[in-house]
C-alpha cells in the first residue's frame, strides 16, 4: 500500500481501493468497499473473514471471474505491473492458470465429472504451452506425484468420482500447478475436508511455497489455520479490510476489535472453557450503510463509527487498521 521503500522489489500483486457492486432490482449494492492489500513474490497471504465478508468476491474480481451483474472498480489492481481489471478477455486467458491459478473449496464441482483426471490436467498444459499429448501426460504424472497421489499413471485414467475428497483437492492443486503459475489463490481449499486431510493439504501448499517460491493467497474463515500458513494476514468484515498485518504481529497483538475477537474465539477453541465469546454478546442489528460494518457488534463503537466507516491507515509495524478508536491512539499513524 505504501510506495515501496528503496531496495524493496515492488509487490507481485498490489490492490488498492477495490470495490465491488452487485446489481439488484433497486440499483447497485456495494458488497466490497475500499479493499487494499499487497502480496510480495514468494509470500503467503492469508485472508480471513466470515461468509459475506467479500473475501471470495474480491479474489474472483482479480481474475475477472465475477458473476454476471457484479462490477468491480479499483484505484489499482496490478499484477506484475499489469492492470488486472483492464485486461481484455484474450489477455486474461493468458493470465488465468498461467500466471494466477485458483483452487476452489468444492473439488467435486470444480472438476468435470465426465472427463478423466488426465484429460483435465493436460488440458491447461496443451493450451498454455501447446504441449504434445504424450508430453503433457508425462508432466501430469509428475504433477500428481508432486501433490502426493500414489500410482499416478493409473489415476490419470480415472474419473473424479473415483477419488476421495482429499485426493480430489490434490488433483485440483495439481491442475492449478499445471500452468506453472506464480500466484496460487486457494479459496477455502480445506473447509470440506476432515482435519487430518486438511493438515496434509496445508503441508502440501506450504511445501510448494517454500520449494518452488510459489506466491500463495489462502482464503479461509478459520483464523487458526493461518497461523501455519500465512506470512501476512488480512482480516475482512462486511466487505471491508479491518486489519492487515504480519501474521506473527496479528496473532500476538491484534489491533482491530474484530481481529481481537476472532483471535479470542480461536483461543477458546483450544480450551475446554465454556466462556461466552466476546463477539457473540453483541446485537446482530444491521450496520448503518455508511458506518463501520463492525460497529453494531463492537464494544468500543461510538456515534462516529456508526456514521462513517474508518479508512485503512498505516500503523507502525508495517500494518494497516481501519478503526476510529484504534487509529487515534497509535502514534505515527497516517492516512494511506
Amino acid at each position, binding site marked *: 500500500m505504501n510506495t515501496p521503500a528503496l531496495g524493496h522489489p515492488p509487490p507481485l500483486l498490489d490492490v488498492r481501493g477495490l470495490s465491488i457492486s452487485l446489481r439488484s432490482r433497486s440499483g447497485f449494492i456495494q458488497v466490497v468497499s475500499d479493499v487494499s492489500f499487497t502480496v510480495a513474490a514468494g509470500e503467503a497471504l492469508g485472508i480471513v473473514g*466470515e*461468509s459475506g465478508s467479500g473475501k471470495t468476491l474480491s479474489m474472483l474480481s482479480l481474475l475477472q471471474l465475477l458473476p454476471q451483474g457484479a462490477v468491480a472498480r479499483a484505484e489499482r489492481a496490478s499484477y506484475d505491473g499489469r492492470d488486472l481489471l483492464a485486461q481484455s478477455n484474450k489477455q486474461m486467458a493468458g493470465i488465468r492458470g498461467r500466471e494466477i491459478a485458483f483452487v476452489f473449496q468444492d473439488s467435486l464441482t470444480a472438476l468435470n465429472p465426465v472427463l478423466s483426471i488426465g484429460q483435465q490436467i493436460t488440458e491447461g498444459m496443451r493450451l498454455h504451452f501447446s504441449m504434445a499429448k504424450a508430453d503433457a501426460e508425462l508432466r501430469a504424472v509428475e504433477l500428481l506425484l508432486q501433490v502426493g497421489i500414489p500410482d499416478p499413471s493409473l489415476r490419470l485414467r480415472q474419473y473424479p468420482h473415483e477419488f*476421495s*475428497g*482429499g*485426493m480430489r483437492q490434490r488433483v485440483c492443486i495439481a491442475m492449478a500447478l499445471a500452468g506453472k503459475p506464480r500466484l496460487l489463490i486457494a479459496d477455502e481449499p480445506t473447509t470440506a475436508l*476432515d*482435519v*487430518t*486431510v*486438511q*493438515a*496434509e493439504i*496445508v*503441508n502440501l501448499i506450504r511445501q510448494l511455497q517454500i520449494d518452488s517460491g510459489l506466491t500463495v493467497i489462502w482464503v479461509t*474463515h*478459520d*483464523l*487458526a*489455520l493461518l*497461523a*501455519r500458513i*500465512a506470512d501476512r494476514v488480512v482480516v475482512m468484515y462486511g466487505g471491508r479490510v479491518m486489519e492487515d498485518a504480519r*501474521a*506473527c504481529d496479528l*496473532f500476538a497483538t491484534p489491533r482491530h476489535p474484530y481481529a481481537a*475477537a*476472532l*483471535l479470542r*474465539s*480461536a*483461543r*477458546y*477453541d*483450544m*480450551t*475446554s*472453557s*465454556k466462556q*461466552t*465469546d466476546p*463477539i*457473540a454478546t453483541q446485537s*446482530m442489528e444491521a450496520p448503518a450503510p455508511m458506518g463501520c460494518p463492525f460497529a453494531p*457488534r463492537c464494544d468500543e463503537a461510538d456515534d462516529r463509527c456508526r456514521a462513517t466507516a474508518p479508512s485503512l491507515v498505516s500503523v507502525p509495524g508495517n500494518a494497516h487498521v481501519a478503526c476510529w478508536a484504534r487509529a487515534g491512539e497509535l502514534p505515527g499513524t497516517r492516512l494511506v
Partner: protein
Amino acid sequence: MTQATPLFSARGIAVTFHRKRWLGRHPQLVQALRGIDLDIMSGEVLALVGESGSGKSTLARVLIKAIAATAGSLAFQGTDITHLEGERLRAMRRHFQIVFQDPFSSLNPRLSIGTAIAEPLIVHNLAAGEALRHRVAECLRMVGLDPTLSTRRPHEFSGGQRQRICIARAIAGQPLLIVADEALSALDPSLRDRVLDLFQDLKTRFSLTYLFISHDLRLVRRIADRVAVMYLGQVIEIGATKEVYNHPRHPYTQALMSAIPVPDPLAERSRHYPTLPGEPPSPSNPPQGCSFHPRCSRAGHLCRTQLPLLNKTSDRHEVACHFPD
C-alpha cells in the same frame, strides 16, 4: 461412578446397507456400523467425532430409531426398545429430537416458523389452542427470537436464526435427548459461538442430554463432557473430553488431535504435523483385524489378525487398541 441407569444403552449395534452398483448384479454390503456398545448418561454431552464416513450420523440415527439396526439391542431408560414399533414408538420419539446441519433444508419453506415449531406439539398431543400459541412463543423466546415473528416464513431469516428456529422446534416437546448432527458446522465462527451458548443455556435450564456429532474437534472440546472417536463404523476410543484430548491413547485419535491447528504462528511453524499414510479403507471391505492397522505405525501381527475391543485404561477412558500409547 454411580450405577445410574443410562438414558440410552446400545449393545452390539451393527448396521449393514446393501448398495446396488450401477448396472451391477451383485449388491455390495456396506458395513456402516460394526458392533457398537455405547451408553449415554442422563444430563451429559456426549460427542461423536471421526472422519466423514466413519458412521457417526448412522449411529445417532440408530439410537433415535430413525433407521433400524441390523443387529444389536437398544434400551432407553432401562427399557428395551429394540423392537418397539407403531404407536408406542411414535410416543417414545417425543423424547428424542434432532437438529440437522443445514437449517435451510430442514425447515419447510411454506410453513410459518410458528407452525413448524407447533407441529411436534400437535403430533404428540402436547398442547392445543391458546396453550399451543403460548408454548410456541415461549420456545421462540428461549432461543432468543422475537415471538411476534412467528408468522414469518424461513426465507426471512438468516442461517443463524434458522438454526435457532430448528432448535426451538426440537425443544418444544420437552425432549430428554437432543441429537445435534453437525448442527453448528454451517455457521460462521461468531454465529457458531452464539448458538453454542444457546445449546449450553438450554441444557442447564432443562437438564437436557446431548448427542453432539461434529467433525470440528475444537468445537467438541468446548461443549462435550465425553467424546467417542469413531473409525470405520467402530468406536475406537471413548472417555472424558479432557482425557481424550490431553492424553489420546489410540494412534488414530493421536493423529486427529495433533492435526488441530493452533492459533499461534511460532508454535505452528516449529510443530511437526504427523500425517496418516493412505486413506480410510472402504466400509464395504474393511481390513482384517484392527481396521486402522494399514495406516498405523504401531501395527504388529496381532493387529492384522485380531480385532481389538474397547478396554478400560482408566476410570474414564476406554481404548480399542492392542498397543495403546
